[in-house]
């Protein structure tokens, strides 16, 4: 297995093992620039920062500790929040029988082309092939039907953390589009539409917080168009992020109100307080490891990853800078003291005492991995009872006396978190273009903008826009209609159809 001669994976691994090799042999640094060659830069940075490793199967990636720790930070926040909402965790099987999968017609039409099928166990063929979940609506709802009898069984609010598989053929991209990914999927059932509506927005707010408070990425909350909504659902809300380098919108997470459509298909009825049969109202909502990809794309730079302190498993890296003739032991001791002090104060700190790498190499290494703050300690620092602190986000260097280190580190980390968000927001806002006409729209699209335009909210018009913008870069589509609507003066016309506009909607190319 895995003998040396077979190191480079056979498919899709063009930037896999190879790039790793390059790094090892030629030292650190990215060979691609974010602004010049974004796609290549991305593929390189996710590997060089040790977030992921490519694998023999196209579209499947190994999530290394550096990315799992980010996933865990988000998990810890979100899981605690949904528990406060009395949502309980559970686990439904990976395997779906075809009968169940096909119960809901629109739903299956949306997912069927992407399903992976188990057809054999050992050497024998299965009588009926079994699907691997692309999402779990159809796996879970027959049980909801069984478990929900009366109004006292409602609301039923469950969530699961698991892997799902979507066998897509479009170009796989680590985190952003992979054939297997990790996510949480929440599925809830209520007696009334009002309760469902309320929860949709509560969850969406948690998603906003994951992006804005944890990943320092500004997002727009809004509602998806009919064309873009979840197959089989009533309406879909989402948080939408934007990648300035490619001018593409990216759906960050979705919170769907499923209405009663699945309830009908799966016979989820209950007896209400008046003794009448009624159908439940449902929601489903999810965010996935895609979040990590968005973070890399938004914050990363030519030196590598840039991690927001809130999700960094190492917030501060302490590096000794010994000189010839200097008291090396004193320097190392100062490093340990510093690390211990910060660790006790609740920061996530590591020291890099490896003796086979130079301080310079270590600086690059931890910059590549995106650690928010670096502390350097050399002879002069020891003599002055201070440390040198270097910010990853703007390279600013500050000498800080040990006496105020804890407070200042706290402030600096908070400041990094905030300025990452501010910088990302400023860049995103610069890329938002308000248009009123088709010509303005096309121009803005060519300038890779995220476009806010008045729209008549007709499906045919969206399809038409898609058709007219089809090209190498992919067609433009609606991203969302923001909840925060600018004023729409009477008489405003749809940019695409010239009909009276009903709302402002974000448009753009997307992932």
């Amino acid at each position, binding site marked *: 297995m895995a*003998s*040396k001669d077979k190191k480079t994976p056979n498919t899709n691994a063009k930037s896999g093992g190879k790039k790793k090799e390059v790094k090892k042999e030629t030292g650190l640094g990215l060979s691609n620039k974010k602004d010049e060659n974004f796609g290549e830069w991305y593929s390189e940075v996710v590997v060089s920062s040790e977030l992921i490793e490519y694998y023999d*199967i196209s579209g499947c990636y190994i999530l290394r500790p550096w990315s799992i720790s980010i996933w865990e930070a988000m998990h810890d926040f979100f899981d605690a929040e949904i528990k406060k909402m009395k949502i309980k965790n559970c686990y439904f099987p990976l395997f779906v029988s075809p009968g169940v999968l096909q119960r809901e017609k629109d739903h299956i039409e949306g997912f069927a082309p992407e399903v992976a099928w188990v057809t054999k166990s050992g050497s024998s063929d299965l009588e009926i092939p079994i699907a691997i979940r692309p999402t779990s609506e159809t796996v879970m709802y027959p049980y909801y039907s069984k478990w929900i009898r009366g109004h006292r069984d409602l609301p039923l609010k469950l969530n699961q953390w698991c892997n799902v598989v979507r*066998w897509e053929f479009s170009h796989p991209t680590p985190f952003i589009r992979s054939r297997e990914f990790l996510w949480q999927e929440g599925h809830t059932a209520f007696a009334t539409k009002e309760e469902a509506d309320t929860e949709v927005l509560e969850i969406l707010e948690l998603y906003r917080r994951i992006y804005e408070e944890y990943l320092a990425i500004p997002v727009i909350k809004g509602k998806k168009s009919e064309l873009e909504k979840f197959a089989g659902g009533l309406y879909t809300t989402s948080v939408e992020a934007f990648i300035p380098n490619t001018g593409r919108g990216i759906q960050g997470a979705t919170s769907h109100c499923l209405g009663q459509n699945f309830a009908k298909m799966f016979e989820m009825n209950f007896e209400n307080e008046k003794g009448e049969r009624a159908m439940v109202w449902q929601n489903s909502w999810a965010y996935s490891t895609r979040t990590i990809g968005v973070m890399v794309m938004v914050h990363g730079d030519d030196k590598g990853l840039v991690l927001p302190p809130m999700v960094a498993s190492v917030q501060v890296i302490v590096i000794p800078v010994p000189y010839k003739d200097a008291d090396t032991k004193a320097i190392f001791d100062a490093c340990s003291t510093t690390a211990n002090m910060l660790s006790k104060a609740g920061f996530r700190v590591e020291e890099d005492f490896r003796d086979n790498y130079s301080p310079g190499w270590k600086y690059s290494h931890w910059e590549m991995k995106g650690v928010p703050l670096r502390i350097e300690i050399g002879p002069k620092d020891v003599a002055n009872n201070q440390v040198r602190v270097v910010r990853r986000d703007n390279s600013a260097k500050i000498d800080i006396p040990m006496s105020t280190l804890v407070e200042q580190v706290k402030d600096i980390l908070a400041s990094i978190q905030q300025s990452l968000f501010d910088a990302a927001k400023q860049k995103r806002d610069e890329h938002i273009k308000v248009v009123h006409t088709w010509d303005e729209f096309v121009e803005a699209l060519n300038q890779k903008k995220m476009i806010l335009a008045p729209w008549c909210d007709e499906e045919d018009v969206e399809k038409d826009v898609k058709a007219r913008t089809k090209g190498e870069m992919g067609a433009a589509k609606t991203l969302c209609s923001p909840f925060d609507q600018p004023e729409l003066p009477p008489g405003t016309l749809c940019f695409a159809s010239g009909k009276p506009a009903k709302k402002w909607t974000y448009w753009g190319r997307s992932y």
Partner: protein
Amino acid sequence: MGALRFHSLCLFLSTSTRAASAPTRLSPLHHHSHGHLVFKAKPYTLASRDLSTQVTAEAEAPENIEKHPKSGQEGFITPRSHDFNAWYADIIANAELADYGPVRGTMVIRPYGYAIWEAIQDYLNAKIKETGHKNVYFPQFIPYSFIEKEASHVEGFSPELALVTIGGGKELEEKLVVRPTSETIVNYKFTQWIRSYRDLPLMINQWANVTRWEMRTKPFIRTLEFLWQEGHTAHATLEEAEEEALKMISVYKTFAYEQAAIPVIVGRKSRLETFAGALRTYTIEAMMGDRRALQAGTSHNLGQNFSRAFETQFTDENGQRQYVWQTSWAVSTRFVGGIIMTHGDDVVIVPIWKKDDEKTGVLNAAYSVEKVLKTAGIKVELDASEQRTPGWKFNFWEMKGVPLRIEIGPRDVSSGTVVISRRDVPGKQGKVFGVSMESSILEAYVKDKLDEVQSSLLEKAISFRNSNILDVSSYDELKEAISQGKWARGPWSGSDAEELRVKEETGATIRCFPFEQPEGTKTCFMTGNPTEEVAIFAKSY
């Protein structure tokens, strides 16, 4: 975080429940093979894999068992002495631990059951990190060629492999295996990640689902898909690997004792029972309520067997290429099945009122008690639903196994007190009236009682275990002990063939050579030769 504990109801594991009597006859279910209970990590070693348990052709739910007329009805639990199998199924269903999955052999883990798994995860994940391991996630799909490269592996695993051949509407070029365990991928990547001694030790863990197309299944105990953690480590020396394997089995042991109140026996597997490919396998063996042994966690010192197969080498300090020394260790949702107990909620509050004018006062008191206990970090559930009577609620929460119940009625409200009932002490004896609602008093009282419940459960389980392990000094004594459904402990230096003979003749296998050994040289009860060690024999799941 406060100590996370399971207040084991011991429904399955000990005698401390109301349905205390041990089954008079064993359900056929107990004969099912599950040699790879927790860590079947090595298909590669099929030869030994199934030796530990007896494979029978019995069906999952035998038709010939006379069902209790009420079995399967909501809220009814078949007495354990009547039909262990039906009892287990009733508990799983009525305590809402799990449901049968849509595909044969799969299982839906319901919130109450999943919370047990989460508690296991919380504890073990913290310990795994404390001991220097990092979490990763490897893909679920493994190219068939990976598995195939090791002839013995594919031979061992293939009957149980789920194969994906169609994806996105197209026939795949290469069949993909849905991971049954991750050794192949892990070693494939270790080979790339490990270059020199500076990269060692490499210590990772993942929480994942794994799939084995089993023919006979039982909720939690054996399902087509299950959840587990699998740790994989690589070290520069044999000593380090050995230390790691011992450290992790000790983590599992501490967990079993301190959190789950399961007095497992820790020991080393016999050569026959050792994970093939491993130098040594360490195990924790739990005694179930029916006195069968359940292998609840294993830790393997893999030596260099896998690194040689996978070419996983490093350059040592002298510039020499060396194969790494490895370990692997796992605990799965099987542990939940072994536990079947209360978990998450420590306390349930049942408000009691008759007249509407009493309702507000009682509910307010209940909410404030809930808040006091929650603030104190105690897991508490307030059952304020109006559709069920207090009596129904008492039964329901007893069935779910919540260790403490707090009752609050109008009279309690006026006296500022509550009534507290212990789940493990039935009737009036377990009931204390007039416990003050004052937050510091109540908090201290509840914490104290929970500690008491925990230690009393563990004590009961230990005494149950001890009274069911017989020391034997001859083969006849062993046969007698096993036929009584007990565990037999005796000096052993027998050969593999003699071990197999014991299995064939009695159905018992060597569960382990316990770490705790009596002093002095003994005489093997089978061969009459002198030996240093005693072994424990038992029938197992």
